[in-house]
């Protein structure tokens, strides 16, 4: 057996090659496994996080990626603090769940997701207008609209109290399993019903505070009047007839709200419904879910349905969540593949089921899942929650202003402050002048 001798040169070359291979930087991709760090919103429905964990674990096992998931709560704005901190540090998770305005606020630091969005839209249908407004900058998709956390804040009425005090059969207007027959459900009807329920000692539980439930409701009414404080081009339009009409109507309506409505936060309306104090609130089905647990006799009388129509249409407040990939993320290709997995129809259906119907997919073809039809009591109470018949236009307060300006209007609660100021006796023109000055500040 002939022995092959290795020369000194061959040995040195071989050693150098081995060193180079061993020392090569690790290039991550789903195929080559690697690590992925995910920051998701901590769902307040018990057990809902398990559904996302299950999907992620299955994907991780299949692709041999080591995934770490952190569920970050929105209580105390911990998620906003985390987003701000990671943006400053340019380090943190690869995928980060961001509510409403945050993809635009962090647009410079996000990886575009056009490639996977095209795939998703093809499979799941078009994205609703609000999610597109908040998730897209020009032609660039900043983030993937997430099912988990996306919600619609329509009316949740008490069937019995609406019949008793306002003479309205809300189930007839919004029958379970069928398209709405709600042409008569407009602003005039709504105002009369609010007055009647107020007289009957069961006022509508709508807040005028500075938190999102109050601001969302005020904004939907504003859009139904065709009013906006800033238009899509960034022009201030506070002193317009549409804004005046909206303000006048809102103050008429607010006179029938609870006297302490300006102090309400996002928990106040839930408590109002669960305590049996009022005939209607504007909320996702979380209040109904609490009632189901704590006051079943009240839950049995709750019906979630569409917004009343105004002169310019029927608008309902929609608050989407997004899954975004930081541009400084270390495993972007794996991150994109995980987002595709989280947006598979089966995954979406499991999220909706785990949240008891609270989460709403942002895609057209996914708003008729059986969860909403089957949830109860009463059965079908959530059927109209995800807007299955496109009966109303989903919207967010301060749209269509450019999102970075709209975010300020929203966060500073300018619409509810305008209503409260005018309600407390400030002349309309003074309120408008104040709002104009505020909004001009937001344009900087």
């Amino acid at each position, binding site marked *: 057996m002939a022995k092959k001798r290795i020369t000194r040169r061959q040995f040195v070359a071989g050693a150098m090659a081995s060193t180079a291979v061993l020392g090569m930087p690790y290039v991550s991709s789903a195929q080559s496994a690697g690590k992925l760090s995910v920051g998701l919103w901590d769902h307040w429905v018990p057990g809902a996080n398990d559904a996302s964990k299950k999907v992620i674990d299955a994907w991780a096992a299949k692709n041999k990626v080591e995934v770490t998931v952190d569920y970050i709560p929105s209580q105390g704005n911990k998620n906003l603090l985390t987003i701000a901190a990671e943006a400053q540090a340019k380090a943190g998770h690869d995928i980060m769940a961001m509510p409403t305005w945050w993809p635009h606020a962090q647009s410079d630091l996000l990886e575009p997701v056009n490639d996977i969005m095209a795939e998703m839209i093809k499979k799941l249908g078009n994205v609703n207008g609000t999610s597109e407004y908040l998730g897209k900058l020009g032609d660039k998709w900043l983030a993937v609209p997430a099912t988990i956390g996306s919600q619609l804040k329509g009316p949740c009425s008490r069937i019995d109290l609406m019949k008793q005090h306002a003479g309205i059969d809300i189930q007839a207007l919004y029958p379970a399993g069928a398209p709405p027959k709600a042409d008569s459900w407009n602003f005039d009807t709504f105002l009369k019903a609010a007055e009647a329920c107020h007289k009957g000692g069961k006022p509508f539980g709508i807040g005028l505070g*500075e938190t999102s439930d109050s601001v969302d409701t005020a904004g939907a009414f504003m859009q139904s009047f065709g009013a906006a404080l800033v238009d899509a081009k960034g022009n201030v339009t506070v002193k317009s007839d549409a804004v005046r009409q909206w303000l006048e109507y809102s103050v008429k309506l607010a006179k029938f709200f609870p006297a302490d*409505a300006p*102090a309400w936060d996002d928990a106040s309306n839930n*408590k109002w419904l669960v305590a049996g104090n009022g005939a209607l609130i504007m909320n996702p089905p979380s209040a109904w879910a609490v009632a189901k647990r704590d006051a079943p006799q009240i839950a049995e009388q709750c019906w979630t349905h569409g917004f009343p129509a105004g002169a310019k249409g029927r608008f309902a407040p929609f608050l989407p969540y997004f899954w975004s990939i930081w541009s400084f993320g270390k495993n972007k290709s794996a991150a994109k593949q995980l987002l595709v997995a989280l947006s598979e129809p089966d995954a979406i259906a499991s999220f909706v089921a785990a949240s008891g119907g609270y989460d709403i997919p942002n895609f057209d073809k996914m708003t008729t899942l059986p969860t909403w039809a089957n949830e109860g009591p009463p059965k079908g109470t959530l059927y109209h929650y995800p807007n299955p018949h496109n009966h109303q236009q989903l919207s967010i307060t301060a749209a269509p202003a450019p999102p970075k300006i709209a975010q300020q209007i929203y966060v500073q609660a300018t619409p509810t402050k305008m209503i409260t100021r005018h309600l407390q006796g400030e002349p309309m023109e003074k309120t408008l002048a104040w709002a104009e000055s505020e909004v001009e*500040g937001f344009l900087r």
Partner: protein
Amino acid sequence: MADATATVVTPAKRAKPAPRSRLRKFFEKKSTIAFFMALPLILLIFTLVIYPAFYAIYLTTLNKRMTATAWMKNCTYLPDWICTNIPFGNLQFLLTRETFWMVFWQSCLFAISAVIFKALIGFVVSHFVHNVPTKGQRKWRGMLLVPWVIPAAMSTLAWQWLFDPSYSAFNWILAQFDVERVSWTGVAHWARFSVILVNVWIGAPFFMIMYLAALKSVPDQLYEAAEIDGANWWQRIWYVTLPMMRNIIAITALFSTIVTFANFDIVRILTAGGPLDKTHLFATWSFRLGIEGGDIPLGATVSLFMVPILAVAAAFILRDVTRRGNEA
């Protein structure tokens, strides 16, 4: 005698000590040891106080998107070439906002009124406790410190229930006496009253314990002398107690003013700044603008606005304390 002489070692014969290295001498210095012992604290302060403070100053000089410097513009009081080279555009913007001046006024109102009430209550209660027989005094001191010991966020949550817009326990009591319910956090003046009340409730025990310590250090002979001179109760307070407590009162007031002025948790939990921004303080408004509104430079500018105000207050009070210290 001969033995004794033999044991004497003359200086010439004594072994020369080895020359100590300069490094060793340096490490043996008291000041060096003190520095190294304090180093962990210095590093902690640098990391958690000095670095963030300078970073906040840097943030205030950036524009909303944090991509460029926020230069000032259109100053009427400065030549253009100076104005446009000062990076305080955020501050210039803030000074033109109505809400900013409202928050400024509210912060002063909140801090001053809360400190005055805390000091008054602390003074009165410390006298009561001082007069309780020594045997039972510890129990009273312990009980009175409870509001200060409970984490503020937790006790404020309890207060939130008492002031709840719809289910206020106070309103329930008022209703028992046929008194109209009060919208504690829904009307500006009641909301301001509520946040100040909670702050006083939490902070008064601190004043009480400080004043109690000061009272205990006043020599009894002074009171005896005053009594012999015919001083009444009020004169003993005015001419003995207060002068002896002056420095403690000043330092406690300064410390409390700083903490109260920069308060965040009470307002954030109780009213979140509402209604109509009428209870916002610098800290809560800064959070609203910077974190919730995504305008971190503007939020940092609001929070830094507190620094010069508090620095001026601190300088005045400490100068007075030093002067009185020198007099003593």
